[in-house]
């Protein structure tokens, strides 16, 4: 007990020395606290982003490999097209089989089917667009396939070769779109969803309902159409449109427009176009699309676009191997949005890396400073050690007392330093997280609005996908960051103090009181 009393007296009576130690540690711990907070915030941003934007894997035809393999066999163009048509698309059962994997967190798929529509003008500027575009491509094509000469984009010959060039420089979406076109022609694309939670474009806010709503009845003959299509054809909520089976124009189907949506992503259109990519998409439910398919005797096949959400980056490759084993055609390729995701978090990941480096440097400096302080301290207090040892205090007790003193001073300094640091870092962290917080705070309300619903109550299953929990977490974040950071810093500080005290312990055990006292007299 007397050792504690001694230590406290010694601290009180040597204010100058301890103040100096304290200030140094305050500065270092303050820097560390800010760095830790930045690191922590960056982590939050990244994980919030990852939660909001899961890793999505999709499959699409790999046209390049197809063309190459066909070309090798030296087939004529007609043969090539036939071979192309022979390739079987994955069926719904196969997709479900693929999705039934340990690597897949969840999956969903949409049916899309090209259709024509009665008295409906297509939203397209493709006549203008495609002539300018095809020009270059036609040149290329001519060199490659001298036989083919078709400038008309709808024609079957050109779609095969033209797409070759296009897919070379486009992203997943592109591939998908081409994949969709294989099924059938048609000016419009019917896209059928299974449930609200599959409608990621609405959940993410890529699409928002401007009028009406997305019907909650996934068995009804209802649809939502794009703002552009509505304007072009003077359509309103409550109107009916008639879609026509492209293979059999006797089969017509009526759809009631329950809502009108607008696409918010401008970046997704790689070429300048009057209309957004989704302008001719008619969004409905899967059952409606299936109905059209089953009524058609010619074996009309809709495109099934699956999206598999995998747990981690590593799982992408494992999942790819797995579905290839399960029988995915070699002409299909598996693509993911991982690059996109990594690009989006790149800057913040850089901040994190920088923070980590800075933290390590601060800690090393901190450790060195502590050790130096300790050594100076011991040199300065040699006499005291000598006296204590001559009056019979054990080495271990002297060491303990000195360590206790340093620890007490360091704890106070850490408390003050990390307090100042935390107070400062709240601002820094909030700045870093500003966008993230704003985005997420609006989310629940927004999701409802995206679907055109005022009182949106996602069911339990859907809740998980809407990331409601995530929103709360972000709201409380300031508190979480600070406490966690303080805890970490404290732990690190104490460990460093203890380590640096080792230096003094070694010094004390090697001191001979005799020499110390002799030096004095």
């Amino acid at each position: 007990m007397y050792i504690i009393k001694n230590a406290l007296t010694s601290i009180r009576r040597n204010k100058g020395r301890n103040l100096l130690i304290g200030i140094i540690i305050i500065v270092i711990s303050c820097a560390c606290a800010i760095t830790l907070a930045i690191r922590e915030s960056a982590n939050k941003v990244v994980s919030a982003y990852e939660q909001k934007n899961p890793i999505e894997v999709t499959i699409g035809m790999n046209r390049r490999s197809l063309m190459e393999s066909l070309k090798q066999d030296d087939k004529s163009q007609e043969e090539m097209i036939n071979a192309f048509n022979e390739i079987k698309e994955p069926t719904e059962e196969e997709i479900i089989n693929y999705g039934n994997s340990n690597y897949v967190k969840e999956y969903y798929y949409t049916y899309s089917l090209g259709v024509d529509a009665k008295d409906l003008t297509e939203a397209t500027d493709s006549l203008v667009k495609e002539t300018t575009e095809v020009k270059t491509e036609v040149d290329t094509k001519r060199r490659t396939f001298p036989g083919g000469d078709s400038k008309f984009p709808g024609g079957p010959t050109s779609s095969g070769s033209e797409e070759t060039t296009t897919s070379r420089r486009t992203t997943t979406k592109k591939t998908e779109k081409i994949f969709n076109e294989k099924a059938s022609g048609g000016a419009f694309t019917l896209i059928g969803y299974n449930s609200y939670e599959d409608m990621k474009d609405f959940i993410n806010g890529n699409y928002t309902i401007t009028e009406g709503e997305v019907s909650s009845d996934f068995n009804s003959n209802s649809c939502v159409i794009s703002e552009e299509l509505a304007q072009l054809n003077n359509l309103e909520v409550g109107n009916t449109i008639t879609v026509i089976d492209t293979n059999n124009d006797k089969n017509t189907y009526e759809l009631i427009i329950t809502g009108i949506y607008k696409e918010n992503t401008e970046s997704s259109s790689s070429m300048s176009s009057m209309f957004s990519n989704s302008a001719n998409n008619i969004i409905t439910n899967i059952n409606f699309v299936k109905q059209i398919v089953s009524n058609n005797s010619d074996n009309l096949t809709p495109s099934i676009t699956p999206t598999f959400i995998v747990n981690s980056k590593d799982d992408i490759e494992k999942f790819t191997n797995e579905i290839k084993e399960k029988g995915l055609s070699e002409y299909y390729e598996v693509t993911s949005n991982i690059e996109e995701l990594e690009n989006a978090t790149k800057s913040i990941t850089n901040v994190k890396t920088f923070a980590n480096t800075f933290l390590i440097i601060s800690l090393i400096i901190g450790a060195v400073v502590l050790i130096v302080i300790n050594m100076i301290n011991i040199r300065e207090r040699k006499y005291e050690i000598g006296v204590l040892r001559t009056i019979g205090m054990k080495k271990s007790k002297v060491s303990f007392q000195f360590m206790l003193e340093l620890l007490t001073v360091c704890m106070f300094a850490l408390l003050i330093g990390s307090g100042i640091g935390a107070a400062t870092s709240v601002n820094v962290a909030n700045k870093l997280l500003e966008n993230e917080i704003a985005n997420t705070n609006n989310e629940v309300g927004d999701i409802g609005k995206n679907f055109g619903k005022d009182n949106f109550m996602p069911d339990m299953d859907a809740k998980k996908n809407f990331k409601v929990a995530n929103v709360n977490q972000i709201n409380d974040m300031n508190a979480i960051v600070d406490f966690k950071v303080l805890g970490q810093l404290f732990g690190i500080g104490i460990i460093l103090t203890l380590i640096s005290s080792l230096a003094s312990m070694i010094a004390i055990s090697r001191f001979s009181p005799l020499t110390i006292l002799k030096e004095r007299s």
Partner: protein
Amino acid sequence: MDKVLRIDNVSYRYKDAKKDEYVLKNIKYDFEKGKIYAIKGKSGSGKTTLLSLISGLEKRYEGNIYYKDKSLKKMDLDTYRNSNIGIVFQSYNLLPHLNAMENIILSMDISKVKVKDKKKKAISLMEDVGLTSSLAKRRVLKLSGGEQQRVAIARSLSYNPEIILADEPTGNLDKDTENDILNIFKRLAHDDNKCVIIVTHSTNVCNQVDIVYELKKNN
């Protein structure tokens, strides 16, 4: 009589010294309780060295030192120093950040001696060595040399050891103060039955003690 301390054929040379450059050579002294001794020697004759062996600060020597028939080499020397012997140095060796009373209490704390009221005991010890209690709370650096040496003596008495070792305790003091301090030591030996060993080069001190041992340089 009661041989409390025996120096049995002790030789010592410093580690960094030459092979046969002994500071102390074949020393044989006996010390009894109730007597005051002086070890006399010129500067550099090895007085402090001998004292550091006796007080257990150094133990790589030839021969043996016995405390009550127990070799120091086999004892826990920290306990020996904080309970069995009291050491008084020429340069007092008090802790400057503590006041007089705290210095004395610290020694009691370290020795784990059982005292009901340590403050009261400290003040009574100070009064025994001729210090007024008004000095108790003064930082030791603000005391005179004589006062500091009295505090050091009070400190060495605080856990009631049988042996008091003093290394030129009056070396920095004037003659009157020297006599005062010497009287305290004499009283401790004769009245309190302690064994007091004073290392000195002062003939005044040698003249007043019971037994004088002379330490010759390079003997």
